């Protein structure tokens, strides 16, 4: 009786563990098979073709791919220095009570649903940027700013956690030699946690590139390569969110799955690099 139960329990748990693997394989397989007609029709040129004309059944993914990459790059350029600054402030400068309070606030902000960042971007940031930059306030730059603010808490929190792993004895020895705080940071802390910080940044990048709700409102949804980052554009998640329920032809539908497959491959690669290259030796980060 006990033996049967033992075998049964073992196999049930194993089934659910394998289930995760099955879902991932099914994810790739289903996206690929749904995208197959578009892959057959456009091949790899889909990636470089910038014409997206549903009325003519011509689909090119370049504007969406371009928009995803550019908005993410803008977000990383803004968020990385600020997040590292916050992490330095929290781990090295702030008195413990302040570091604890601000650290807690930042962790809580990381939990706020991304659609709220999107609504704020649409109703507050876009009008502000419209006044500063002109245009209608929608575009890659606005999307990049919203994304940067959305990933900031996450990035700051894991960078701070990475910095905290430096053994204090190393820092104390450097201080003992008369080093300034900056010198300790530059020559002791950062070299020690370098791969952890890079890993956190790439992980945040992986999050930003697949983000939908924070950017759909402010991207402007125009299927072309904008001649300026202040002009309306689109990205892969934004295209999916806006057009999925409108796809009326098979090729249209299939092209959207092609985009989804490309996004999955990009994010899979980015996260795999972050995890296996940089964060291998670090304590697992809690998300």
């Amino acid at each position, binding site marked *: 009786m006990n033996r049967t139960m033992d075998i049964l329990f073992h196999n049930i748990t194993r089934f659910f563990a394998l289930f995760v693997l099955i*879902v991932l394989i099914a994810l790739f397989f289903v996206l690929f098979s749904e995208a197959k007609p578009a892959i057959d029709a456009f091949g790899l040129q889909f990636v470089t073709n910038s014409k997206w004309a549903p009325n003519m059944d011509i689909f090119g993914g370049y504007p969406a791919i371009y928009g995803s990459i550019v908005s993410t790059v803008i977000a990383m350029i803004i968020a990385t220095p600020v997040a590292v600054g916050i992490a330095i402030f929290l781990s090295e400068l*702030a008195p413990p009570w302040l570091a604890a309070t601000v650290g807690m606030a930042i962790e809580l902000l990381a939990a706020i649903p991304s659609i709220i960042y999107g609504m704020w971007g649409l109703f507050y940031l876009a009008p502000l940027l419209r006044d500063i930059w002109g245009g209608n306030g929608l575009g890659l730059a606005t999307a990049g700013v919203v994304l940067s603010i959305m990933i900031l808490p996450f990035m700051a929190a894991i960078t701070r956690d990475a910095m905290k792993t430096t053994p204090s004895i190393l820092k104390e020895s450097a201080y003992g030699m008369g080093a300034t705080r900056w010198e300790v940071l530059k020559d002791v802390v950062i070299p020690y946690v370098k791969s952890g910080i890079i890993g956190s940044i790439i992980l945040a990048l992986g999050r930003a590139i697949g983000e939908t*709700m924070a950017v759909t*409102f402010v991207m402007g949804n125009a299927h072309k390569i904008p001649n300026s980052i202040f002009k309306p554009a689109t990205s892969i998640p934004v295209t999916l969110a806006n057009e999925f329920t409108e796809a009326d032809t098979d090729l249209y539908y299939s092209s959207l799955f092609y985009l*989804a497959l490309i996004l*999955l491959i990009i994010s899979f690669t980015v996260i795999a690099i972050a995890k296996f290259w940089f964060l291998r030796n670090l304590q697992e980060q809690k998300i």
Partner: protein
Amino acid sequence: MTLQNRRILINKTVMVLSTAAAIGGIIFLFWILAVLLFKGFAALNFDIFMYDMAPPGREPSGLRNALVGQLMLVVGASAIGVPAGVLAGTYLSEYGGKKSRLARFIRDISDIMMSTPSIVIGAFVYAVLVAPFGHFSGWAGIAALAIMMIPIVLRTTDDMLQLVPGSLREAAIALGAPKYKVIIQVVYRGAKTGMLTGILLSIARIAGETAPLLFTSFSNNFYSTDLNQPIASLTVTMYNYATSPYEEWIDQGWAAALILALFVLGANIIGRIIIRKREGEH
């Protein structure tokens, strides 16, 4: 300038810059929080909980159907995601162990799954559960959220079970208890608080997801508890309302945002209090 002065100057500059970064970043984040609280509380009233969504201009209108739909989706996803994640995590920690290659592989896969763009999961569920049936449904929304939830629960369960000292397991085994009983009655009990916290946080995490619901559970203007039909959710309603041109819909969108944020933050704060309490006991 002497070398020492220069070193001190560089040091001060960097420290001022990073303090400024912290202040700047925090100002932006608090700006968002302030907008959310201000707009949300201004739009919040009893009608929101009493009445269903209505066309703009029609009074009274509320978000009752979206609240009920949201609750059903989250409860449904948790009913599938929590047991599946806990059992899978149990396998990794108790049968796989640290050395097993399969267990390590599944851990890595779950980490990747956790960061998979949620809209891609929505598209996947659309292809599997919506397109073949020809209509959006609450079940499809539940499936999408559960798929996002399983890897999160799996990883926390795995971590929490590994914190239970091996000597406890050995003591139970020495008494002749079969392994499944050791796991259920000893290991789970030892890891109870940690697992509960992890589950709470994973519920909070999926409750705020919009993208996977856009084309799975879709939305519904009417009160419905039928999971075979499209069902309204707070998040999709926020999306639809925020992009609408109607003032009162936009305001209700902020009310929905506030309700959602209070739920998510509340769950996070409770989770933290539980963790702190447990740490205090040791």
